């Protein structure tokens, strides 16, 4: 399995966006300030799925789709492309253990596409789905420590999926933060 580290940078603008997203009603008070941050390498499987289908209007159609499967949460996303790799190399920071295998990721990707193909195609006659080329990506995300706030209130910022949340809403990240004795 090839592991690919996808780098990103953390800017002040992103931190402001994160605070705004996680605390929409408190940002005016400028109450929270950054005290430090650490890097969390978030693992995602990217699975290519081949969809073959016959409809009542046309037979023998086939195409490839792409699904990202979250390795720590039961989340699947249909995506348009692989993450853009700026550079790859040593992953400094927290690298969590994978909670699923490559086979699990394949199954999840097929399950997602099956739901889409079945529920959204009006004239489907027959279909076949298969997964191939499962790739593991570690996306660089950030945990921002906020002054005088407990870890539950810290920010989690994922630049790739443009997600920002309090750590209390991302328990899969929080558990690693509490487990690791990280120096900021």
């Amino acid at each position, binding site marked *: 399995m090839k592991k690919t580290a996808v780098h990103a940078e953390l800017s002040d603008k992103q931190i402001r966006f994160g605070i705004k997203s996680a605390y929409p009603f408190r940002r005016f008070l400028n109450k929270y300030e950054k005290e430090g941050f650490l890097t969390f390498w978030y693992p995602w499987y990217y699975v290519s799925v081949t969809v073959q289908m016959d409809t009542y209007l046309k037979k023998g159609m086939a195409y*490839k789709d792409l699904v990202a499967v979250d390795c720590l*949460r039961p989340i699947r*996303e*249909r995506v348009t492309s692989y993450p853009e790799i700026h550079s790859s190399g040593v992953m400094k920071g927290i690298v969590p253990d994978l909670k699923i295998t490559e086979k699990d990721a394949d199954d999840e990707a097929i399950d997602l596409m099956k739901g889409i193909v079945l*529920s*959204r195609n009006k004239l489907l006659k027959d279909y076949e789905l298969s997964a191939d080329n499962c790739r593991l990506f570690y996306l660089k995300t950030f945990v921002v420590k906020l002054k005088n706030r407990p870890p539950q209130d810290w920010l989690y910022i994922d630049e790739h999926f443009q*997600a920002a949340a309090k750590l209390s809403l991302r328990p899969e990240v929080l558990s690693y933060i509490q487990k690791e004795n990280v120096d900021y």
Partner: protein
Amino acid sequence: MDELSIGAWAWFWLVFFIVGTLGIGVYAMTKTKTDEDFAVARKSYGPYILVLALASTIASGATFMGIPGLAYDKGFPALWYPAIYPIGIYIGLILSVQLIKRAGDAFRSNSLPEFLGQRFDSDFLRVGFALLSLLLIYYVTAQVVAAATAFEVMLGVDYQWGVIVTVIVIGIYITIGGSHADILTDAFQGGLMLLIALLITVMFFLGTGTEGGAAGINAAIGAQDASLTWDNYFSAGDPIFGSLWLVILMFIAHLPFAMNPHIGNKAFALKDSAQLRKFLIMAIPIGSILGFAVLGGLHARALIGPELRPDAAIPALFVELFPPALAGFLGIAILSAIISTADGLFVSIAVIFSNDLYRKTFSHKIHPNKSQKEVEKTALNISRGATILTVFAAMWLAWNPPDFLAILLWIGVGGIMSGAAGPLVIGSIWRRSTKAGAISSFLVGVVSYAAMWLVIGWQNPFGAAGVCVILASVVMVVVSLVTEPMPEDKLNEIFSPVRK
């Protein structure tokens, strides 16, 4: 060409529309290298396309015919409606869509009834909400009535023939319903409706066809009936616009509107959760602009007088103000929007039968020995049968048109709102909601709404839904507080899921 009548132009544009729609379908089948566009009916959309799709789904026959019809009949007090409903709908959407999208992704929900069953771990709620959603048939009927009315006014065909032509056109839509056609028509129609709503708004403020702008329209309406002018904030004694209290109820009734299965489903089509913010920010102004189509009802009243059937106000206004070619085109453009909404509703109803009732609930009881593949094949057949059944049911209900489309539509929507308010909206934002609270709230909402119609006979669907939404919400909170909270593990699975 100038000698052609409005009816002839409307027929021309109708043929153009049907040929165009078929053309899009054929294009979709032959165009792609990979077949992806046809294969996946709604590929992952970005927020721009989805906002237009959402707007064209929410704004339907009621937006361009039913609501302007109310304004045509009830005058300026009806303006409360466009002022209130987009705010209600989109606040409700903002409150609950994030959780529904997140948890829907996590739980692989294909529909809102399925999500509801998972949220509260309850088969009863899934089946109950699925059965309740069958009231969408009234929504479909309202679209067929709207389209047939447009045919009647624009094309001069008998109303009943209009119903038949509508159903045939919808049939064509469904048959060619490949994905690319869906994408193109949804986005295109959303954009077109936006332009038409803007056109109606500009014409109203310019007072086209009258002297003195909007004030001229007000004066012309006042000459017909002084109680309809803008000096009247409320329409005394009216069951819908009679008082501030009724208007507040209207606002409350619309809060859970986005929880209608065919609308809430749009959230599942977003490419990823990160786009929700942009999606919601754009959805509010665009939805509000569409609401201003109501001004056309006032404009028609000022120009044409009180003799029209209210739902025909906008088509009649176009006929009055524009040259035949343009009026015919605008009428058919609205018609196509109505039909595309109906098309989406048919699919939603089919999903209720095939997914929520058969696949998720009854398949393992009635077909215990069938393989997964066989079950899915049966589900597909059920989906097709349900679509055909719905078409005929809507045709039957639409045969004798009611006075007000908006009210017909709300018989169904109000019931769904009343049942959904507690479990879906409060359940989405309040972690402490319990299964007992959700079931009680659902039952109270549905039963009280039925009582409002059948026992009390209150002729204000917004008011009835508003009262029932309040009642159901109170029941949700009170019962949840006095019953055991749901297990923390289960709540985490929904609000912040983690792989075990």
